[in-house]
């Protein structure tokens, strides 16, 4: 008896060794499962042996491998967790040995017709443990010899279940780590920074797409090449000694330099960060190099600088123009107040020319200053209670003379009465001025200009219409951009800086209003200003 036991023992040990060898050989799960069920079948002399695994998609236990069960039946076997014997073993995570028909009936909802009253019954079922939930069951049924399973058999099956559980868990972990690794690799690949790992001999061991393109190479071709082969000697020396220092002192090293790679031909401003890698046992003395392209950052810094230069230039110009304009304006005014007694018509005309052009220059300088404020966001409005209609009347007044001269019919109409509003009267006046300035400029002789105000429940509308040359739809939005002018003979002839509408829009927007060109107005141009009513 003990001899038989001893031989069984060694057989069993052989079986365990066999299975554990299979597991460590790295064979795939299906092969290992299938070989295991056949080994169990032949060694324990059982009729059937199957491994059922939880299918996470359907939530059923399904046959993964079986011996003694025809393959066509496999897909038909679906066991819900908690139901049937296998289902209960899975849920309770405890092995069960079904010893007779009564037990079988007790535990089975629909006992298989296979087992008749007289059937011999000895069916062990063992759970496969996994992390968190039991992922499967080993089901062994009836020895061919019609002997009951001994405790010893059960121990063996338990050990096999343990091994397979371990295998399942490892597989799960492996998949997880594979996943994590892939995600990490994807991330490194998609980084905008160049990442290179370099071994102790300063040879590239890995390099992402960005790094490769910065080096003027492909990731595959960069591998196993010395870093120095990609760049000039001096840079390579600097970087190599930084790598050594980083490893020696276990610290980050950082430098900004212009990297001239051999293949790229041009140099790129770059920040290079060198980090000693911690995975010491496998790859001793490896460093990671992070390359950050600074060209864009430099460009931005340069643009900012230029922008600053531009605005201090604008402010300087405006100051330097204002100072001489002040005595000119003052002197002209004195001349006008006390005109010399004998001015010839020509001299008078000359004086008018000086005056007009001084005004034009002053307007330009004022506009430039406004633009500076708008751009620096220091443009502010001061709201005061304003009679809008009265303000518009006086804004129109200065244009009467020139309209008369050009034989343009200039009319103002106030459709209904507008109560006082909180507005920056000077700024809104400037807007009307700019619009009329354009209207007069772009309307030929004998044309018409109309200014109209009206009030609705919650807004005030100001229209400035002219019968002039009109504005093509394609310029509708652009017209409000700084310095934008439609190229035509009139704007060329009349000059102007293209600032009037830009400033007008800024002023109206500061009042939370809108200014736009009315599409439906076909006889010339109509600007419509909408201002919300304030209380």
């Amino acid at each position: 008896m003990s001899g038989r036991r001893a031989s069984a023992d060694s057989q069993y040990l052989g079986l365990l060794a066999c299975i554990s060898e299979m597991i460590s050989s790295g064979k795939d799960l299906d092969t290992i499962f299938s070989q295991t069920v056949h080994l169990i079948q032949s060694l324990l002399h059982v009729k059937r042996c199957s491994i059922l695994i939880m299918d996470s998609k359907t939530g059923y236990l399904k046959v993964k491998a079986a011996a003694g069960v025809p393959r066509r039946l496999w897909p038909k076997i679906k066991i819900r967790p908690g139901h049937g014997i296998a289902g209960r073993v899975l849920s309770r995570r405890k092995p069960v040995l079904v010893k007779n028909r009564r037990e079988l009936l007790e535990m089975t909802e629909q006992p298989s017709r296979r087992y008749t009253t007289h059937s011999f019954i000895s069916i062990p079922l063992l759970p496969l443990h996994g992390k968190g939930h039991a992922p499967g069951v080993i089901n062994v049924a009836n020895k061919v010899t019609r002997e009951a399973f001994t405790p010893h058999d059960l121990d063996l099956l338990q050990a096999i279940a343990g091994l397979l559980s371990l295998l399942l868990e490892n597989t799960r972990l492996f998949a997880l780590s594979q996943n994590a690794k892939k995600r990490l690799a994807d991330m490194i690949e998609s980084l905008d920074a160049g990442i290179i790992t370099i071994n102790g001999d300063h040879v590239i061991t890995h390099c992402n797409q960005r790094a490769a393109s910065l080096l003027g190479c492909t990731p595959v071709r960069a591998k196993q090449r010395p870093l120095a082969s990609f760049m000039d000697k001096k840079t390579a020396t600097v970087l190599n000694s930084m790598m050594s220092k980083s490893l020696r002192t276990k610290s980050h090293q950082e430098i900004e330099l212009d990297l001239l790679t051999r293949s790229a031909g041009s140099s790129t401003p770059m920040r290079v960060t060198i980090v000693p890698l911690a995975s010491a046992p496998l790859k001793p003395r490896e460093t990671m190099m992070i390359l950050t392209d600074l060209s864009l950052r430099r460009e931005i810094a340069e643009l900012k600088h230029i922008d600053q230069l531009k605005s201090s230039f604008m402010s300087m110009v405006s100051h330097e123009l204002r100072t001489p304009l002040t005595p000119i304006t003052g002197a002209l005014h004195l001349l006008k107040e006390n005109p010399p007694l004998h001015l010839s018509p020509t001299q008078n005309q000359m004086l008018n020319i000086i005056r007009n052009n001084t005004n034009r220059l002053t307007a330009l300088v004022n506009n430039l200053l406004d633009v500076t404020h708008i751009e620096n966001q220091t443009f502010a409005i001061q709201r005061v209670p304003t009679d809008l209609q009265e303000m518009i009347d006086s804004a129109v007044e200065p244009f009467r003379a020139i309209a008369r001269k050009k034989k343009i019919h200039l009319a103002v109409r106030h459709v209904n009465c507008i109560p006082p509003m909180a507005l920056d009267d000077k700024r809104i006046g400037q807007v009307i001025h700019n619009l009329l300035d354009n209207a007069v400029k772009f309307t030929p002789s004998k044309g018409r200009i109309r200014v109209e105000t009206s009030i609705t429940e919650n807004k005030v509308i100001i229209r400035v219409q002219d019968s002039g040359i009109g504005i093509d739809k394609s310029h509708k939005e652009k017209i409000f951009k700084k310095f934008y002018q439609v190229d035509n003979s009139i704007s060329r002839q009349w000059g102007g800086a293209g600032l009037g509408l830009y400033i007008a829009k800024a002023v109206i927007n500061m009042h939370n209003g809108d200014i736009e060109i009315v599409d439906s107005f076909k006889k010339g141009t109509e600007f419509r200003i909408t201002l919300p009513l304030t209380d």
Partner: protein
Amino acid sequence: MGKKKILLADDEEDIKTVIKLYLESKGYDVVTSYDGLDTLDKVKAEKPDLILLDIMMPVINGFEVCKQLKADENTSHIPIVMLSAASHADSVERAIEAGALDYIMKPFEPPRIEAILKKILG
């Protein structure tokens, strides 16, 4: 009622000449100064009724002059109107903060000065 005396502080000779001429034609007495220090001296010597003060002046700028005059109880009552050529550094807020009553942007039509003087001096 005697003539009101205006101190015009600006380093630009042409501006001073024109404004002085204009204000005199409107019946004001006008004295001038040419920089910040000179302005402080002239205020003490001339005791003007109002000061037209340019911001960008040599030695001591207009803001500083204004602050000092406002800090001195002998001069703090004198109304100050600032003249500015709108350089980057100057602004209405800073002028008002320094104690100025009003602020005129260069270039200006001379009647604008007269209007402001009338408003302040009556």
